């Protein structure tokens, strides 16, 4: 009796489950009808043809970019030097390719050849043609998991998106960027001539790199004094530089990276940590620290050493040669939605950057002197130096970026970011769109604006807004 009841109960439960989950014929037909006709018509027996040659990682593309800049009529502190262009037309060929010279020997080239016209450049001139030699090096693998590379190499570090304190070779390396998006700034920058050794282990890796001093430090370049074909090693090899870094894989969740960097007479330490939380979030922290002077003192010293600033003239704002332990930090998190939008929110600290008092002094000095005064030139030199070093000018900033894949329609990617100085609320806002027309063609555009009061970090910049339209053909 109880056997029969139990059996009935079990069968009843299963029957009910099956009935609930039944994939009915009309539902099946509806779903099958979603298969494109062209796919349905492919013979079930035929095996689609696979691509014969696989691209091993090379990239070659031609891009045309036209930019227009809107300048402020009355900036709080006028710029004495060359102002940004009103318009720029740029056509460039971008190449990244590897050649295998022998079984354990690889030659790598990465560069961009630009044809450029601007309202502030005469035509024709050597400034219309330039070549950015990003990388050119030979890689040798003497034995399994050991690598030696020699040549111009882009050695990058860092897990953050908007600011990379441990990316020690970033300084002076960015040339005429088309976008202020940090992910783009990372792409088109000059490598450093160095010898790099890397050993991969089962549970981690170790890298050491040495870049020799080959030139004396040179003055900061502007958009109207770029050399045409010179590789500009003076930007990257003006001091002896040494980097050692190691990472350890502690399970699949945690793989910290520690760094030690020495340049000239200064040593910095660094760390990178990244960890995913749940299905949608990643939290990360990037830190470096070491003894150094403030941004103002470093800039003034560099300007005097390179002859840009008068050697013994007093500074327009207070300076000191005091060095102390200074931290640089980027801490943040990413979050990805089910609708394919990834947000990154970061806090940035550049302890050597401008304090609130520095900003007050900067605007007061700018207001007190005429535009032709050397003091005004010096003030803007401080800002140019921070940009050249890829450092935030202000001490504290917040960075928010959103990237939306297949936004509104398939193949449209929208990216927007805001980088704001927390002292005055000013910032840079940029929105860009890329539409992938086909496997080979991409069209896109961007709008960027420096917003904030006239007497603020970003609101004081000469460039109010920038618009760009581009077309790219990939080969």
């Amino acid at each position, binding site marked *: 009796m109880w056997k029969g009841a139990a059996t009935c109960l*079990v069968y009843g439960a299963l029957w009910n489950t099956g009935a609930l989950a039944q994939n009915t014929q009309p539902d099946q037909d509806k*779903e099958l009808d979603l298969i494109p006709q062209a796919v349905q018509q492919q013979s079930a027996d035929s095996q689609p043809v696979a691509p014969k040659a696989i691209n091993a990682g090379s*990239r070659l593309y031609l891009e045309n970019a036209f930019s227009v800049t809107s300048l402020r009529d009355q900036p709080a502190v006028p710029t004495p030097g060359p102002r940004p262009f009103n318009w720029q037309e740029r056509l460039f060929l971008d190449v990244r390719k590897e050649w295998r010279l022998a079984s354990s020997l690889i030659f790598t080239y990465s560069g961009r050849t630009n044809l450029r016209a601007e309202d502030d450049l005469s035509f024709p001139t050597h400034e219309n043609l330039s070549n950015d030699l990003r990388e050119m090096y030979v890689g040798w693998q003497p034995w399994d*998991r050991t690598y030696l590379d020699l040549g111009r190499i882009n050695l990058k570090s860092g897990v953050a998106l908007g600011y990379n304190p441990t990316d020690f070779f970033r300084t002076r390396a960015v040339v005429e960027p088309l976008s202020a998006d940090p992910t783009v700034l990372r792409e088109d920058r000059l490598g450093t001539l160095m010898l790099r050794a890397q050993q991969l282990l089962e549970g981690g890796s170790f890298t050491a790199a040495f870049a020799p001093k080959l030139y004396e430090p040179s003055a900061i370049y502007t958009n109207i004094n770029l050399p045409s074909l010179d590789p500009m090693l003076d930007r990257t090899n003006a001091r002896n530089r040494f980097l050692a870094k190691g990472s350890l894989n502690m399970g699949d969740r945690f793989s910290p990276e520690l760094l030690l960097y020495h340049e000239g007479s200064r040593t910095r330490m660094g760390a990178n940590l990244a960890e995913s939380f*749940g*299905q949608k979030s990643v939290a990360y922290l990037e830190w470096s620290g070491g003894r150094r002077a403030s941004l103002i003192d470093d800039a003034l010293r560099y300007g005097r050493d390179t002859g840009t600033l008068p050697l013994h003239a007093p500074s327009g704002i207070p300076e000191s040669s005091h060095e102390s332990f200074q931290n640089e930090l980027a801490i943040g998190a990413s979050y990805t939605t089910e609708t394919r939008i990834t947000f990154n929110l970061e806090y940035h600290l550049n302890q050597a950057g401008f304090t609130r008092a520095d900003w007050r002094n900067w605007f007061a000095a700018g207001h007190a002197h005429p535009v032709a005064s050397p003091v005004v030139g010096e003030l803007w030199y401080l800002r140019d130096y921070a940009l050249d070093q890829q450092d935030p000018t202000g001490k504290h900033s917040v960075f928010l970026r959103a990237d939306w894949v297949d936004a509104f329609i398939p193949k449209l990617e929208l990216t927007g970011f805001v980088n704001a100085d927390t002292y005055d609320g000013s910032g840079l806002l940029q929105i860009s769109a890329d539409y992938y027309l086909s496997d080979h063609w991409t069209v896109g555009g961007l709008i960027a604006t420096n917003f904030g009061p006239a007497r603020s970090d970003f609101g004081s910049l000469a460039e109010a807004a920038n618009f760009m339209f581009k077309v790219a053909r990939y080969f």
Partner: protein
Amino acid sequence: MSGTFRFVAAAALLIASAAAHAQTATEIVAAADKVRNPQAPFRSTIRFTDYIQGREREHDTFVVFSKEDPATRQFRNLVQYAEPARDAGKRVLLDGRSLWFFDPASKVSVRISPQQRLIGQAAVGDVLTVNLVVDYDATLLGTEKLVDATRAERQCWHLDLKAANDRAVYNHIEYWVEQEKFNPVKEKLYSDSGRLLKIVYFRNFAQRLGALRPIEQIIIDAVDTSLATTATLSDDVFQDVPDAWFQRDYLPRLQIN
């Protein structure tokens, strides 16, 4: 007393039957995994063809290195983009919860979340070699006749898979496996919120890596049904894949030639 005994016995039988059924579901999924994936390390090429409103649009090609981790019985994957040209050379490490994306243009490795595996029509999550039995708890819902992508009728087990850990790509999967052959026929993939994301049909079974395996999947975007993708496997070869490859710092060193 007698009543209590009967109740306990009935409950025990019910639990035992349910357990046996769950075991059966697990065995079915495990057997279907063996049809989908070889047990030895291998390299494969996957070509995605995107269709928008029925018209062929773009192609994405990935080279994938896969190796089963004996500790977790799950596959570790290393993926390199070969097509389209603008993405060529990008690499992704998908090893449990260790997910890293490397772009040779920026030369930086960025940690990504499991959700980011599902971005894009040709989501990297779809090129993963996965043992479903490891990451999902399976329940057998019943058996039914199902029309496959070739419009042929198949007698299938209908299974419900629920994510058993945070490595699972999808939160929930409905899965149809052909009886006797253990061939995967169809999947419905759901998000955390229960939204139907994709419908997948398996088609073209052929000799691949030592067994008869599906070499084509048709992936329908259930959110925007004007989008569909075919994924075709080719150039399969058994290949040793050292453990040292499955770390962030190896990504820049990967060579696919």
